[in-house]
């Protein structure tokens, strides 16, 4: 069974209200969802709230996920990222983030080695290789925008670069990542 067929099957079961499907999705993806939420928010409590929001949403509105538009993992992580960024951008979350960043950094969560997290996944390896091959001038702005939830303007300010330059570098870097993704997906 292909990955897309598996995602479609689980989507059908979610739509049918099959609770065991929700459990399966949680067991497979909760670690990634919580990990990304924590990476963006740097706050465990907020990250758990985001994780809850994501799984409640996928259960409540399963029709929102279309397997033809990409893997379930990508859908869940896009939702996770979006919600985590929303939280980071709220003034309250920003304050808590500052207060707890040090504490979270010293109480390392149980985690897997990020280098190992995607091993065995051809697409993941290809994208990670492409990311590693990017010059710092492209890679760093992408990571700042994605993991830190910063706007182009904020990235530009942090890097002390013109906003147009940052936008151009992000564009070039992102196009390379997309090309790596497409190269794997179209290969036999």
């Amino acid at each position: 069974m292909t990955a897309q067929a598996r995602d479609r099957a689980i989507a059908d079961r979610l739509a049918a209200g099959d609770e065991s499907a929700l459990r399966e999705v949680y067991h497979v993806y909760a670690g990634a969802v919580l990990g990304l939420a924590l990476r963006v928010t740097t706050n465990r409590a907020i990250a758990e709230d985001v994780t809850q929001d994501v799984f409640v949403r996928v259960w409540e509105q399963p029709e929102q996920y279309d397997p033809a538009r990409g893997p379930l993992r990508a859908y869940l992580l896009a939702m996770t990222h979006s919600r985590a960024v929303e939280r980071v951008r709220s003034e309250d979350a920003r304050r808590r983030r500052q207060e707890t960043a040090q504490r979270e950094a010293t109480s390392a969560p149980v985690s897997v080695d990020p280098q190992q997290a995607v091993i065995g996944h051809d697409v993941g390896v290809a994208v990670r290789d492409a990311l590693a091959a990017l010059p710092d001038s492209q890679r760093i702005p992408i990571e700042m925008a994605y993991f830190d939830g910063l706007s182009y303007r904020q990235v530009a300010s942090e890097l002390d670069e013109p906003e147009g330059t940052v936008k151009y570098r992000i564009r070039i870097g992102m196009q390379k990542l997309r090309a790596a993704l497409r190269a794997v997906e179209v290969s036999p």
Partner: protein
Amino acid sequence: MTAPLDDAEDRAIARALDADDAASLVTGVGSADGDMSATDEYREALSYLPFAEVEPAPELEDRVLAAALARRPAAVPALERVARRRSRARRVTLAGTAVAGAAVISLLVGTADRPERALRGRIEEIADSVTSIVEEPGTRTATLTAADRESVGTAVLTTDGDGVLYDLALPTPASSQVLWVWLVTPGEHVRLGPVADPDTRSIGFTVTGDTDAVKGIAVSAEPAGITPSAPGQVVAAGPF
């Protein structure tokens, strides 16, 4: 002042990054199919960026599931939840009795020096307890029989939808197979879920909706690794 986002490519990237620059886009302009297709690909690429997965606390799963099911009740409840909920609640109900009994049986089975007679007596004691509840008005029972016509368990369903399979002695599936439990309703079989342990003595379940529509119960052996949409090889069944 935010720099202008020039074209569909920039809009797709900004959307994938959740860059708040995307908010400055004119609604509708960026929602063309081509834009969204590119956004999906950028989002997928970003999902592979390296970050550490984090093991959630066990309590988080309970919290997430409770919140989800409160918003949208399950049409097909998971057996695991039903059994665990009843075990925790320690209710002296039909299902509670059987689940608690199953725990005792497991303990007896796991103790090598327990005499066989004690185990047998305990099973009969549980059956007696269930029998008194079965006599409540509206409660229905079904005897599960295997292909050789031997009884391999009993199913009970109350009028409020509480159900339990007890005294189970299910056939052992092949190593490449998993047993699944089904409700038999007119025109279709409703999947209840897989049997995690073929040696289990009891399984609780809940039926929402019209319990009268449930005409029987069946157990099938299915290839491991798939979620069947209909029973394949039925190994035991019985009518209510």
